[in-house]
Structure formats: structure tokens, C-alpha cells
């Protein structure tokens, strides 16, 4: 009973420990569910990040659009979709980056790449 999950290669398991680590990041992303907040983020990303008390390391991950790093820092994937949308990065673009491939390379690995 109550067995913790065993690590899975190349996979992040979003558990409470990771969620706690990503608390600031996820709270900031949750705010992006409001159109006014999305505008505020696009207007001044730095001020927005400061308002949510991001650490310098966290800010760096956002500035460099390091999606792999953000997941490792505790950002939830569904929270990250909101940052992706606000910065013009679709799920598939973020995915390609996390796989270490170009977007075009990634599309070639799909069964029917027209279904986007």
C-alpha cells in the first residue's frame, strides 16, 4: 500500500514534491487563464515574473524558453501549455525541443502529421 512511483526513463512524474518545487511557476501559469493577465505578461514579462516571486533561475528558464528545464523545475505540463500559448510555442514545438529535435524532424516521426 502507498508505494511511491518508481522513476520512468525520460519522464517526469508530477507528484506533490515536484508540484511544491514548481509552486511559483505553476501559480504564474494559472494566472494566464485570464485575458487581462495574458496581456500583462506579453506587455512586461520581467515585471510579471517578479510579481509571482520567481527565483532568478526560474526567470532564466522562462527567458530562454527552456521547456525541458521548466518541467524539471516543477512546472506542470498543462501549466506550461499556457506559457507556450502566450509565447507562440505550440505543444508540438515544445515537445520537439524536449525531445532534442527540430520541429520538422519531430513531425517526420508522426503517423499523420497533418492532424495539427
Amino acid at each position, binding site marked *: 500500500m502507498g508505494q511511491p512511483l518508481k522513476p520512468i526513463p525520460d519522464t*517526469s512524474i508530477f507528484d506533490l514534491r515536484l508540484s511544491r518545487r514548481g509552486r511559483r511557476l505553476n501559480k504564474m501559469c494559472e494566472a494566464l487563464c485570464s*485575458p487581462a493577465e495574458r496581456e500583462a505578461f506579453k506587455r512586461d514579462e520581467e515585471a510579471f515574473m517578479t510579481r509571482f516571486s520567481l527565483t532568478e533561475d526560474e526567470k532564466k528558464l522562462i527567458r530562454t524558453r527552456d521547456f525541458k528545464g521548466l518541467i524539471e523545475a516543477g512546472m506542470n505540463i*498543462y*501549466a506550461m501549455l*499556457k506559457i507556450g*500559448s502566450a509565447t507562440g510555442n505550440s505543444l508540438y514545438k515544445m515537445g520537439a525541443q524536449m525531445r532534442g529535435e527540430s520541429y520538422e524532424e519531430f513531425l517526420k516521426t508522426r503517423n499523420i502529421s497533418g*492532424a495539427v
Partner: protein
Amino acid sequence: MGKIVGGIGLSHVPSVGPAYDRGKQQDPAWKPLFDAYIPVREWLAKLKPDVAIVVYNDHVADFPFARYPTFALGAADSYAIADEGFGTRPLPEVSGDADFSIHLCEQLIQDEFDLTVCQEMGVEHGFLVPMNLCFPSTASGWPVKSVPLQINVVQHPLPTARRCFKLGQALRRAVESYEEKVKVVILGTGGMSHQLQGKRFGFMNEKFDQWFMDELERNPEGLAGISHQKIMEEAGAEAVELIMWLTMRGALSKKAKRVHRHYYAPMTTGMGLITFED
């Protein structure tokens, strides 16, 4: 008296929403998916359900991690369309059935399922994509009323597959003890195989997905013993959403018969569809 007349297991892939809204039903890449739902809607038109219980998960739209319920049941007469961070889809507000929901809450909590009860709730793609495919809305609204049942399949620890199955069994008892005549269809949504993060992004496993549908049909009690670990290892971390299909299956009787089955995996998610008539 309340009666469960059917159950549907189906994926709730977000990209289906914009594809639908942009009229891509005939696009060769999307057609196989949309076409699979034509006979399902014809079947539903014959079943004539009054209410759809939709077992789904929120994707950090209406439920923030600050307070995150394991099981949350809607108890309202309407549900807003939530903004997930990309604006809201042009869909009418969802109509609920608060009296029926309240009955379900009373019965389920009495039955030791300690739910979070939501008198306000916004619904997003996890709920809307399946509803849109099975019960498309028009300008005047949705053809059935809904009861949203939100399950935590995102922030571990998650409820076990067995617990989700038992919740379905309790739901059946609750529906059948309702005094008014109401025909209910239950939707179990999410999955199938997919992983959306890490280097394993894009991982799918059709063999697992087909096996899952086989077992769901023939051996649901056994399938309810599946671990999160097994699902996540074999079908991708986000595939663990499949435990919500077990709630749907648990709500069906032993005599339920499978009617439709379909599978299509174009991009990053195995999109499954299975229906049962009860």
C-alpha cells in the same frame, strides 16, 4: 427511477476542439476521427438520454494546485466555459441538473465517497471535446443536461484505478435510487497512450491501447487492478487518465454490450472510442 442506458470511453485530445471549430471534419487527417462519431450520435439519438455524467479532468484551468480535489462533482444548473489560457471556445454555457447532482452527492457521500461539491465550476477541453463529439451544441444550447465529475489524474498521488471503478459502481447505485425518471449516459474520458513531457514526448503504444479496450470490454474487474506505474511505463505518463474510463465501466451492469469501437493515432495521442449499451 434513474437508469444508466449507456457508457462511452473516449479520448479528450485538446486539438480536436479547434479542428472542429475550424470545420476540419472532412480534412483527410481528421476525417477518420470525426467519422467514427457519426454512428455513435445516431445510436445516442435512439437511446435518448436526458443527462450525461462526464468523468473528466481539468487541465489547470478551473482547479488551481493551491487546492486540488481528488474527486469533485458539479452541483449546479449551469457550468461556464473555462478559459484554459488560450481564450474560450465559442460554445454555449453547459446546462446542468442541480437536483439530480444533489441527489448524487447525497448518495455518494453516504456511500463513503467524500467528494468535493462544486456549486460553481468552469469546464474545459477535458469535458468539452467529448461532449462536443457526442452531443454537439447549437446556438440554443446542448441537447442533454450534464453532471461533470472531475478526477485528479494530474498531481500524484492519484486515486487508484480500483477506486475509480468503485466510484462508478457507487454512481450506478446513486442513479438507480433517484425517484424521477431520468435516462443517463456516462462518459469516461482521457487517454489513451500519450506522453506530453520529457524526452519521451510523443510516446504512444497502440498495442497497449487495444489491449486496454479488450480488457475494458471482457474483464473490467481485472483491469481495475492495473497500477499507475504499469499504465505510465507502457503507455506514457499522461495515459494514466485512462483510470477515468474505469469509472464509466464500473457504472455499467454485467449485461452491458459493446456497440462501437474505434482507434486513431495520428500525432501524439492514441485516440480511442468504445461504447456500451446497458
